[in-house]
């Protein structure tokens, strides 16, 4: 299992990342992926710029732990996580997760598992600029519930 984690300010190209993973591994039959992006509305307010802070060092370690957990649970070839930090604006990409496997069930489950854990364990924080000023985004109980269900 190959695990690649990147925390960066730069944007990413999902198509190119998937092509790179698939290149040279003809055993891959399934590629599940996810992109999270900035919406122009959150909690009913229009959002302009957004700033993403993280905890350098711990972030990468947590993401690697999350990927390792996924590979312990499902038979997968690759797990790739790219998470952006710094200033972002509506329509920007924030995060992508790509998982490859022989059959689709494993890649779907591992991809969603990684996203659910990332949302609750990886040390990233969003600050939004709204017409009412700047505000730190609150953690959502829904995300905790999404991560919790994998503990069954």
């Amino acid at each position: 299992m190959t695990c690649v984690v990147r925390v960066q300010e730069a944007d990413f190209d999902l198509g190119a990342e998937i092509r790179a993973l698939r290149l040279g591994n003809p055993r891959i039959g399934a590629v599940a992926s996810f992109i999270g992006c900035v919406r122009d509305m959150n909690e009913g307010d229009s959002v302009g710029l957004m700033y993403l802070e993280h905890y350098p060092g711990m972030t990468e370690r947590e993401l690697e732990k999350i990927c390792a957990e996924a590979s312990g649970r499902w038979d997968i070839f690759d797990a790739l996580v790219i998470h952006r930090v710094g200033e972002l604006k509506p329509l920007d990409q924030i995060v992508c997760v790509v998982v490859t496997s022989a059959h689709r069930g494993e890649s779907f489950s591992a991809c969603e598992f990684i996203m659910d854990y990332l949302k609750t364990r990886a040390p990233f924080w969003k600050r939004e600029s709204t017409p009412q000023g700047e505000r730190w985004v609150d953690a959502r109980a829904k995300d905790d519930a999404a991560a919790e269900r994998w503990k069954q």
Partner: protein
Amino acid sequence: MTIQLVFLARLRERFGVSRENFELPAQTPTHTNTVATLLAALREQGGVFAEELAEGRAFRVAVNQDVVQLDHPVNAGDEVAIFPPVTGG
């Protein structure tokens, strides 16, 4: 003993500092430093520290970059980060 404190996101802004050294009473046979004793020492500074780190407030503590519970030991040289619940992705 000296530890290194790290504050992040909203707490970094509220405390006006992102990283600082902090002095805790040395450990003795009858006194072990834990996350709980560290938080008590921080609250004693009063002001925003007492307010934001009050019991029942939502924050997390990582010792040497692992999220831990209140009874986790804190040793000289540890990096102890205090931050709000995460909101990435």
